[in-house]
């Protein structure tokens, strides 16, 4: 046994003894486990518990496969009411007028939803600075934000007018400060913003629509839709478990009308 090993053992034991156990550890652990289970169940779209356990087993593999450098491509999706891919009948003039209420209007963007902390000046400022470094003079209009629980880092979906026209963005806090994950032109008549982003265990599909939207749905196989988990009015998340080029998203309006239906980019 060398001197360094003896010293190391003593040092580690001395330091470890400084750790103080909280009195209410069990309730905190059980509360956190329930929260994790809810999140996983929501992310799995209500699949069986067995499948959720399978996700836990695959954590490290999936994390490794979704490094920021390998983030799946992201894009905005424009879904005018007459979208050819939509199975819904072409709307009448009245219906078109009604659907226009769900369009992201650059002159009057959707209101902010989600965690109020993300839209506060202190949290928003780094996002704004990162955005302005790319689009000088452009101001972000926050649409939705959250503190992503696993990383405890903020995420933001925002709209902005730029010298190149209206754009939308998904920004997240990162190890380096701010990462602009999505920076896309906002197409005319956009009714839903779709972003596939890395998650704690699986890649996440996040959809932001008008706050009046009633339901947002996802079909991994392109046919059988299930409700996505609502994060806020008009905002939903689902694990990106379908095949790109096959999986689809549907947004249903307050009256049950179809607002959006398209392939996930």
């Amino acid at each position, binding site marked *: *046994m*060398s*001197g*360094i*090993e003896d*010293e*190391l*053992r*003593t*040092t*580690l*034991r*001395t*330091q*470890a*003894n*400084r*750790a*103080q*156990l*909280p009195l209410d*550890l*069990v309730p*905190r*652990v*059980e509360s*956190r*486990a329930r*929260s*994790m*289970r809810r999140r*996983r169940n929501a992310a799995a779209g209500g699949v069986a518990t067995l499948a*959720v*356990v399978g996700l*836990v087993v695959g*954590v*490290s593999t999936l*994390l490794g496969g979704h490094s920021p450098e390998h983030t799946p491509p992201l894009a905005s999706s424009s879904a005018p009411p007459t979208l050819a891919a939509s199975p819904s009948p072409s709307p009448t003039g009245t219906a078109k007028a009604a659907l226009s209420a769900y369009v992201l209007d650059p002159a009057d963007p959707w209101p902010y939803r989600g965690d109020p902390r993300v839209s506060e000046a202190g949290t928003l400022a780094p996002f704004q600075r990162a955005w302005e470094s790319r689009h000088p003079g452009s101001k972000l209009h926050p649409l939705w934000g959250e503190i992503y629980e*696993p*990383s405890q*880092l903020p995420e933001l979906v925002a709209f902005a007018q730029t010298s190149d026209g209206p754009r939308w963005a998904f920004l997240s806090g*990162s*190890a*380096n400060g701010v990462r602009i994950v999505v920076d896309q032109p906002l197409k005319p008549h956009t009714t839903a913003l779709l972003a596939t982003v890395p998650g704690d265990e699986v890649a996440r599909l996040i959809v932001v629509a008008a706050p009046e939207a009633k339901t947002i749905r996802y079909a991994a196989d392109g046919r059988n839709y299930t409700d996505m988990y609502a994060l806020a009015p008009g905002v939903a998340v689902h694990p990106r478990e379908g095949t790109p080029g096959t999986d689809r998203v549907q947004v249903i309006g307050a009256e049950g009308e179809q607002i959006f239906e398209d392939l996930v980019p």
Partner: protein
Amino acid sequence: MDDGAASEFRGYVAARSAALLRTAYLLTGNHADAEDLLQTALAKTYLAWRTIRDPGAVDAYVHRVLVNTRTSWWRRRRHLTEIATDEVPERPRETDLGEHVAVRDALWTAVLALPRKQRAVIVLRYYEDLSEAETARILGISVGTVKSTTAKALAKLREAVGLRDDSAPAEINGGAHR
């Protein structure tokens, strides 16, 4: 989780949480992160409780979750809260083997500066007293990697506190033979 399993889990937490928190503290280097890491690891264990059929394997499972979760956090936060580096901290002046407190302070500082894998190996080998094979299993690496990682970490720690290498290479690699 049914009442019986919940009771078993609570019993495990009551019996082992203090020791696990100490390990978490050594892995993170601060109290808040240690507590958060332990809660997360135990919550993941809670969710997987029914799938862990061998009660003797629970500790190994929790250690694996602790290290993996810590690694996951480290990947996300490394540039914000920690910079792992191959460079060891400056050697303390006038270090004397007789000045144990100074040496141990310097040693702890050097442990905190170790890259995450080296720190995890050191904690599992020299705090948990796990064998090389057990350490390899928990970290998902080979025994050979455990040996080489241990040797590199010890070399850095020696340099940091100004201790000369007075052990044979076999002893360095063997460390806590079990």
